[in-house]
């Protein structure tokens, strides 16, 4: 059997992304390895403090031949619209997490709002990647 280990977001600049994810979102670096034998490919992963087993890889947008120029342009345009990826984060106390992240400079669309599935807010990283942060609605006991 296998398990999900890492999900990816494309970033324009890995150093900028690293700073955002660690200092603003409060995540931890899980790996930061540059491989000279793979053209200085930098494998940079982060994840929430209490969740070491699943990470987000902050992947630099490669050029040719991995991603052709046209795809690269398309990708950047879609990233600017925030539609390439979507990661959903859950919080035990969304209001507290919201205040904490906001105080560190995370740009939220709006404060947490009540939705049927929970209390929810959204933000984007410096490359435009879309994140939802929510405290899930209580499920009755006995589930």
């Amino acid at each position: 059997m296998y398990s999900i280990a890492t999900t990816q977001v494309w970033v324009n600049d890995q150093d900028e992304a690293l700073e955002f994810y660690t200092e603003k979102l409060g995540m931890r670096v899980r790996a930061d390895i540059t491989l000279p034998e793979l053209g200085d490919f930098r494998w940079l992963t982060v994840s929430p403090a209490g969740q070491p087993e699943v990470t987000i890889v902050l992947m630099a947008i490669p050029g040719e031949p991995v991603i052709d120029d046209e795809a690269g342009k398309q990708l950047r345009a879609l990233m600017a619209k925030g539609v390439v990826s979507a990661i959903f984060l859950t919080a035990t106390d969304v209001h507290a997490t919201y205040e904490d992240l906001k105080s560190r400079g995370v740009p939220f669309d709006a404060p947490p709002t009540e939705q049927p599935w929970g209390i929810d807010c959204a933000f984007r990283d410096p490359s435009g990647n879309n994140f939802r942060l929510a405290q899930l609605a209580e499920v009755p006991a006995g589930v």
Partner: protein
Amino acid sequence: MMKIATAQVWVNDQDEALAFYTEKLGMEVRADVTMAEMGDFRWLTVSPAGQEDIAIVLMAIPGAPVFDEDTANAIRELTAKGAAGSVFLVTDDVYGEYETLKSRGVEFVDPPEERPYGIDCGFRDPSGNHFRLTQITEL
């Protein structure tokens, strides 16, 4: 405290994706709900058996009124090229897993190969999303 709960992949057809992820990849459905009042938006998530705390959302590429045609087409093309982003899976037995998935009809772009970090292989889903399956080498 914050946790990653779901990550998304864009799919051309949710039924096609569902069949692939459950029958070929052997994942389990975590949620499958269609909301008529939201233009039949279908929330469809899957994850490997035994890993219920995180799931992959199989998100249909929407048309109007959610996305205009150009955006939808751009997403579809990017995904088809495998450039929308990858999901990384880990296993204790990459060769065994490779054989199992292959026997179910999963098409691999790379068979298992030794790399600095481990042995890994790659496959794509029907929409083009790229997956890497890795057996990490203990350093």
